[in-house]
């Protein structure tokens, strides 16, 4: 019932939201997510492109930021990157390289998205005995 009441109160607003949704959806093929923060078991990780808008089929760099779950930057982590397009059964067209900048920032150089579609970028993050994986989805 709480859900239904909320629905009733917002029925007019919902019409507008739906209208906006459909307007947005018409150009969805060009929309990409270029900043995302996600929590893994041990880390809070954000991933941001250094180039906007995201370039299709051009090599560019991103910055990966790693915090502990209580917000402290993670330094001296060993980070490796891989990814690809699961639907097309292929990996990345390049071999990106990760290097540490400072205060939990890590530079990810050499990424390229060679075609439109759904991409996944995975990071293995290791500090001491803790190893964790995070996955980002990027859609062109």
């Amino acid at each position, binding site marked *: 019932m709480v859900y239904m009441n909320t629905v009733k109160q917002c029925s007019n607003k919902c019409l507008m939201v*739906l209208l906006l949704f459909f307007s947005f959806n018409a150009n969805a093929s060009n929309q990409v997510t270029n900043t995302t923060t996600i929590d893994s078991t041990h880390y809070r990780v954000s991933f941001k492109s250094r180039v906007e808008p995201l370039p299709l089929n051009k090599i560019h760099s991103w910055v990966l930021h790693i915090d502990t779950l209580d917000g402290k930057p993670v330094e001296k982590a060993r980070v490796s990157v891989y990814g690809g397009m699961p639907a*097309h059964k292929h990996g990345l067209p390049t071999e990106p390289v990760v290097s540490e900048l400072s205060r939990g920032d890590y530079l990810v150089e*050499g990424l390229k998205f060679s075609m*439109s579609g759904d991409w996944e970028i995975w990071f293995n993050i290791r500090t001491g005995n803790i190893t964790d994986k995070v996955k980002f989805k990027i859609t062109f």
Partner: protein
Amino acid sequence: MNFKTSLKFNKNIFYLLLWVFTFSLQATQVTGWSDTELTMLRLQSIKNLPELPPDPSNKYADNADAARLGHKLFFDKRLSSNGKVACVSCHQVAKNFTDGLAKSKGIGETGRSAPSIVGIAYSPWFFWDGRSDSLWSQALGPLESGVEHGGNRSQLAKIIYNDLSYKKMYEKVFGILPDLSDIKRFPDNAAPIGIRKSDEDWYAMSDEDRKIITRIFVNISKSIAAYERLIVPGPARFDNYVDALEKNELARANKILSVDEIAGLKLFIGKAMCVTCHQGPLFTHHGFHNTGSPDPASIRPKITIQYMAKKNKPSLDQGRFKGILLALKSEFNCLGEYSDAAEGDCSELKFANRKRDETLGAFKVPTLRNIVETSPYMHAGQLDNLKEVIKHYNTIPIAPIGHTDLLPVKLSDKELKQIESFLHSLSGPLAVAPELLRAPGS
């Protein structure tokens, strides 16, 4: 919430959805294309082709005098061991800069089909396996290949040195030619090309003299590259169709492409997923994929059945797996001493994918512009016509080497024919000055 309120709300949603559906339907009915599809078509249109990307590894890439020299060299058969092979022998203008052969022939037979050079300057990699990372370093290869031009760098340097017209054109771009008249310092056929006499003569030369010859050889190729950069495609019927759609001139659009061609286009960017790799105004994303192309030997067998039974035999073309290793160790790559690029300009080479399981048996995705003029198809001309190519992509072939990225699209025979029809709409005249399409002075 009572039943009435709930009903009223549901009605609102219903009318909204009806309006959205009707609006979308109207838009689609007007052009036959959804907004998303129209966006995709625009991205494929030649109007979306950007300016030529710069080539930092070749500071003469956009030098008009270098292109003039390159034009002359491209058509000159003296640049071969028997005086009968020029670049244009395998990149024939009338065949969209290909030669119509499964395996191209110069001095001897090569292992692959000559790819078109139309729009090639937009690619970051060259040759079917991407073993060169610049257009000029690509041009070096055939000149010294024993089955292509069969030439050598000393011979080529001396052609420039001894021909007054060439010498003048060369010096205008690259400065004064060194004196090559001393036959002891500069033998006529010295080069590191695996021929005993040439190799002996080459390694008998001083380091400095070898560099003098190699620099001239590189400048010859940089000139040829400057010419080849000018060979770009022009608008085809497909582009005129998209243009008409953009201007809402539907009647005109429907006169440009036939019903089957339009249906084929719809499949190309939709169900058939061709656009995944043949993406952008050149209909290629310039990447490498293992498409499970048949082993050339199984198409035109020259070897025994016993031998054919071996999986991943060394004679099979390893494609990009070997290509990237060759590019990385080439003295003529983006990071080498003959490149004009700064280290930061060499990202493609620096971050190139070398993983065996992703590169083995992979070849470069070719442009589809003017594709009907460039049979036979695939890297070694394994498939004779477009019908065979499309049929190949309709299945999941077992790759003769490595593994394929292909997914089955399961099109009907009618749909296969429609895609073939559409590909005919990608032919158009090149956007190149007519005098560049024939030998200079002819």
